[in-house]
């Protein structure tokens, strides 16, 4: 039974993938329409999955509260916040002033704070980098970061000659952009073969082996 379920899942996944791919490359109306319908279903399923994910989140945190695990007070705060926000959103609508206020006065400042923490964490990590991995690449990394920073920020004693207008652009627009494109090409090739493996059923990220 389990094998049969696995085969059905694989057949659905592979045929759907092939139909969407054919609809992208071959401009025959039936394939284009089919592709649009399948992608529409995918979007609806993704929205439903979001709801399931939120229920899962509630299950995890309510279990933490019930079993009085470490940090269960934070789980309680999360559950109360989630229920209040959900209720307000459902009753007042997502465009209501109060619902917007929750996002602009709670969610955004909290995320901005985390971004600020990240800046400190990164500054510390850069200092530790040479101690942790003392090699040529780490030195190049630190030197490049310093040159780009010094060429970008306003300095109290004025600009360093030719750093901001010649050296920094050369590093960021020639060397870094070239390297970034190389990495992106590698990532794109990796993404392509990963998609093909799923299409051939060699990878089945939907439970079956």
């Amino acid at each position, binding site marked *: 039974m*389990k094998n049969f379920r696995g085969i059905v899942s694989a057949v659905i996944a592979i045929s759907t993938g092939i139909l969407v791919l054919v609809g992208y490359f071959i401009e025959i109306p039936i394939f284009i329409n089919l592709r649009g319908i399948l992608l529409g279903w*995918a979007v609806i399923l993704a929205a439903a999955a979001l709801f399931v*994910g939120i229920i899962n989140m509630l299950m*995890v945190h309510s279990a933490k509260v019930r079993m009085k695990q470490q940090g269960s007070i934070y789980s309680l705060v999360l559950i109360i916040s989630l229920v209040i926000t959900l209720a307000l959103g459902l009753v007042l609508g997502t465009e209501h002033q109060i619902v917007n206020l929750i996002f602009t006065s709670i969610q955004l400042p909290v995320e901005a704070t985390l971004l600020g923490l990240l800046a400190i964490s*990164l500054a510390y990590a850069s200092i530790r980098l040479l101690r942790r991995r003392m090699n040529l690449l780490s030195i190049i*990394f630190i030197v490049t970061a310093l040159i780009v920073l010094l060429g970008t920020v306003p300095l109290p004693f004025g600009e360093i000659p030719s750093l901001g207008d010649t050296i920094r652009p050369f590093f960021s627009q020639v060397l870094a952009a070239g390297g970034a494109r190389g990495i992106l090409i590698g990532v794109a090739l990796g*993404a392509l073969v990963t998609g*093909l493996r799923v299409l051939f059923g060699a990878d089945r990220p939907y439970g079956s082996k």
Partner: protein
Amino acid sequence: MNLTTIAGLFLVLVSAGLLVGITYLKRRSTIHVRQIKAFSRLRNAIGRAVEDGTRLHISLGHGGLTAPQGAASLASLVTLRRLADMTSAGDKPPVASSGDGVVAILSQDTLQASYQDATAGGHYDATGGRLTGLTPFSYAAGAIPIMHDEQVSANVLIGNFGVEAGLLVDAGEREDSFTLTASDNLPAQAILYANAQDPLIGEELFAAGAYLNAGPAHTASLVVQDILRWLLIIIILGGSLLKMVGLL
């Protein structure tokens, strides 16, 4: 059909042909891949986790399958399955966190399938695969307590991460646990290079399956990527040369 579409179709067909052909040819022979220290350390960390009775935390990123970052999420799910199989002998099952509803459900499905294969249909705890937040930073904020509170000895951050990956790595290091990181996002890769002990750069994210022995198709993928990479290098150099002599 315009030229870009024809080129895209050609690339897909050539890659598909190469992948099928090389997978078939290499089933009986071994392909030697270069050593990546991060994967050797990951194997050691898995062994330690199984012996200590501690847990593996696999963070799958916040990219969805319907977004362009879907391939990174697919690669992360394959890695999750392989890691779940490798730790099936341990006392504690791995825990997976993600920032997307679809990936969270698929992670549960993957863990359940692995658990049921290992225990011949035993009961699976549905909280093994978790959605920890829906925005990048809330996802990170939700995943950090897993590292602190759930006896995690190794973290594998693999998938689509943004700059918030820096916070996750920092939390892992504070717990003195092994942390392997891989993202398809460029700013995240720069942050992970500075922050993490074992960062994977570029397409190494998609090589995880091959290094964790997920099957011949994964090893063949590496060969296909190498062939395509050389093909692109030749095309880029040829194009530059033709441009220089004024033929393009």
